[in-house]
């Protein structure tokens, strides 16, 4: 009988659980799903990428591969490199995504990731410049969702952060006489990551209840979503509330407080994983 009511009246089914302050999968309203992260060539399967990470947030699986290429900097910003994020939601991750040009959700997610990188200044574009006006690094960050079960933005930001921490850039020098670039693959340096932004997403139910880390089912039933991105100093890198039910300033403040707590949890996890893969 409960399976019937879940398909026929999903909202009523959820409301019964929310009244008891819990969710059908047994979580509290403020509890995240189990987060696992695999970084690097050995654990994560991308061997051709310069940096890679696989993040699982419950069932939501997102993989991020970073490839570094060389290019000439733009004329108006001669000392800046480029970071190009791209979020893909292929049709294998959920049946609602069709194959073909990227849909609105993928494009909006790509824009969001680009904004997070820019706002948090996690990678300063000047650091990517090798020779002003002549050569700079371009970091192509491809974030692909392998299994969509809600909360894409949190998983994507986390995967991006983990992959960037894993990137090793070879040393590039420009030969003075010939003017050609020489790539020294033996000497690799990690990227300078200044800030560590972490995203926390909430779903708004019935204009009042806020639940953390929504699954795909919860996202469909929710009346709105909020995503807060914080960095380690407790500063807000992004408040992303694309429409949905109106919220008071106080409710928004609650979300921010929860996001700051989540940041500490995620930072600890990432540090642990990085330490475990760093060769001694």
């Amino acid at each position, binding site marked *: 009988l409960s399976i019937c009511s879940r398909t026929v009246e999903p909202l009523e089914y959820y409301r019964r659980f929310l009244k008891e302050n819990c969710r059908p999968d047994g979580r509290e309203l403020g509890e995240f799903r189990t987060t696992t992260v695999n970084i690097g060539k050995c654990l994560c399967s991308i061997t051709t990428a310069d940096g890679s990470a696989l993040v699982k947030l419950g069932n939501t699986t997102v993989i991020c591969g970073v490839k570094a290429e060389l290019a000439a900097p733009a004329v108006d910003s001669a000392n800046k490199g480029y970071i190009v994020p791209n979020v893909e939601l292929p049709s294998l991750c959920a049946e609602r995504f069709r194959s073909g040009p990227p849909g*609105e*959700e993928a*494009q*909006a997610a*790509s*824009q*969001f990731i*680009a*904004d997070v990188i*820019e*706002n*948090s*200044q996690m990678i300063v574009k000047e650091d990517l410049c090798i020779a002003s006006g002549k050569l700079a690094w371009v970091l192509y960050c491809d974030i692909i969702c392998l299994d969509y079960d809600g909360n894409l933005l949190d998983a994507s930001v986390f995967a991006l952060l983990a992959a960037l921490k894993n990137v090793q850039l070879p040393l590039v020098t420009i030969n003075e006489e010939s003017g050609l670039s020489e790539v020294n693959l033996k000497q690799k340096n990690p990227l300078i990551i200044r800030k560590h932004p972490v995203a926390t997403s909430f779903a708004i139910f019935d204009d009042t209840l806020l639940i953390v880390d929504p699954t795909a089912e919860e996202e469909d039933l929710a*009346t*709105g979503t*909020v995503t807060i991105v914080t*960095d380690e100093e*407790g*500063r*807000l*890198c*992004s*408040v*992303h*509330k*694309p*429409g*949905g*039910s*109106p*919220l*008071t*300033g106080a409710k*928004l*403040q609650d979300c*921010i407080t929860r996001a700051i707590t989540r940041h500490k949890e995620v930072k600890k996890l990432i540090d642990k994983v990085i330490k475990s893969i760093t060769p001694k």
Partner: protein
Amino acid sequence: SVSPGDTSVLAGLYGPAEAKVSKELPDRAALEVLLRPKVGLPGVLERSREQLLRQTCEAVVLGVLHPRTAISLVLQVLSDAGSLLSCCLNAACMALLDAGLPLTALFCGVTCALQPDGTILLDPTARQEQDARAILTFAIASSERKVLMATTKGSCSVEEMQQCLAAAQRAANIIFQFYRDSVRRRYSKS
């Protein structure tokens, strides 16, 4: 058409009209927003802005009164001199008002720029936006001045965000008064 300063956006609303079978929703109206930039083709930035506008409008429009229909909102940017997103929000709301669609609340867009020295500037020009440390755009609903949409560019502290939000909520009163005056002027001629 709404133009604060020199930023100008033209909004056209079509609907509720018959929807294509692939797009229709069985219990509510399907809202679609198209944002056309002044130059060039719409790109990823326009797509993300369309998503913000669409979900903001969906929150106020009573779509359940017009099931299986399509409401299309087309916004054309005529000139951009700063605060573009809030201009689009205001244009969208006035278009919804003018079309006579059933709404639960009105909304208005307010942009706040945080200067490097900490002062809050409302409705910044393009120059002020460039110099600012952070730009926050809010859509404030007319019922209890709640936040309908929020988007930030640049980083700021939590207190600064709350201050900007409070300033935006105060400014919303002025914009709602402007709505009232415009609608009164429109209908007083006839």
